[in-house]
């Protein structure tokens, strides 16, 4: 029970991840005049009409809701970039580098700043496609846990949301595999591995995706 509740507690909810993603910086173009804002997390502004400035996403959304600014979508949310990423994602076994919070940021922008994104439908379906391709990769990639002894998984370029979704499942599975392949269960079945010093051999760390 203790182990299972731990693995549950370590997972964030989707809403919590969205909250964390709101700290990412984004560029806005204000249409009002305001002095700079001094927060614990830093100073933002000053705001001048038509002069772009960097603010956290939560502030951008708050200003946007009041009609005080226009949000400039980040560079990776352009159609060209996303098409490139999607193609690379389909061709390559590896995961493409995307912002850690790309799922959350794109959703926030689609919800609050639709009119600021060019070709919003196209962008949206591209991001959906990328996400689906990546999720499928994760699903097939996780099969390798069962192939050989695995003690750790390397999740290169996996985004926050993706890692969070597989976390409860993967930790449980790894735990069970670890328990079942512990030396006291698999003793003397292979003499060779027993000869090796146990301390130094911590087992292979697998890539989520074999190359």
């Amino acid at each position, binding site marked *: *029970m*203790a*182990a*299972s509740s731990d*693995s549950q507690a370590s*997972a964030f*909810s*989707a*809403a919590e991840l*969205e909250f964390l993603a709101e700290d990412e910086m984004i560029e806005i173009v204000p249409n009002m005049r305001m002095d700079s804002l001094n927060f614990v997390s830093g100073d933002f502004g000053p705001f001048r009409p038509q002069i772009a400035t960097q603010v956290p996403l939560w502030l951008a959304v708050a200003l946007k809701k009041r009609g005080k600014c226009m949000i400039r979508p980040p560079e990776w949310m352009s159609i060209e970039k996303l098409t490139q990423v999607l193609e690379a994602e389909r061709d390559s076994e590896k995961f493409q580098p995307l912002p850690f919070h790309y799922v959350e940021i794109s*959703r926030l922008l689609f*919800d609050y700043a639709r009119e600021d994104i060019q070709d919003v439908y196209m962008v949206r379906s591209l991001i959906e496609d990328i996400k689906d391709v990546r*999720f499928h990769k994760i*699903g097939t990639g*996780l*099969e390798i*846990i*069962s*192939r050989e002894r695995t003690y750790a998984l390397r999740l290169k370029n996996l985004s926050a*949301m993706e890692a*969070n*979704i*597989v*976390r*409860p*499942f993967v930790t*449980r*599975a790894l735990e*069970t*595999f670890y*328990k*079942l*392949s512990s030396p*006291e*269960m*698999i*003793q*003397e*079945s292979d003499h060779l591995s027993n000869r090796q010093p146990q301390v130094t051999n911590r087992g292979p760390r697998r890539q989520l995706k074999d190359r």
Partner: protein
Amino acid sequence: MAKYYDVDDILAEEELVPAVFQHAANGIGLFDSSDDTNKVEAGSKVELPFWLVCELYLRQLVSIRVPPCFDKESKTREEIGADAAHVDLRSRCPYFYELGCKIAPLIGDKTIGPFLLVAFRIRYKEVLIKAHTLTLTVAPKYLTLLTNEEAKLYEAGQSSIAAFKKWRMGGPRLQIAPLLGRKRKPTG
């Protein structure tokens, strides 16, 4: 005894294990209901929960026979070898892996460990696929095949996917407490 507060660990130790009494014992006739003498003869076969067998075995009062689901000549082994993913392990022993882990070192059967690992390896793949694809309407039928451990794994995968889908579909971001909004009955 490893995890004192773990309910599943306790329940796993409730599983019945066949054992043979080495000595005759008085006053425990309820273990062996075949006679009314309220005693157990030496050599009589009984099925006792694991926690009791374990203690008795350490005192050399009983000998343990391998439970049918782990036995070398049993059907379960053959079935696992043939198609592990579709064996109904839940009906054989809902705590298959936990009990296996406990009983293997006790009786010193070295084949149980690899057997469990092979079984879980193959069944893991099946759970992985099902957990991330199945819709909720199909799930219950498949769940009846899984042992306790596997069912939990399945649920872990399924619930995180479901939570993500719910978040993505959106809906109100701020939930109104049910207490609010019904202070007054709507008039007309």
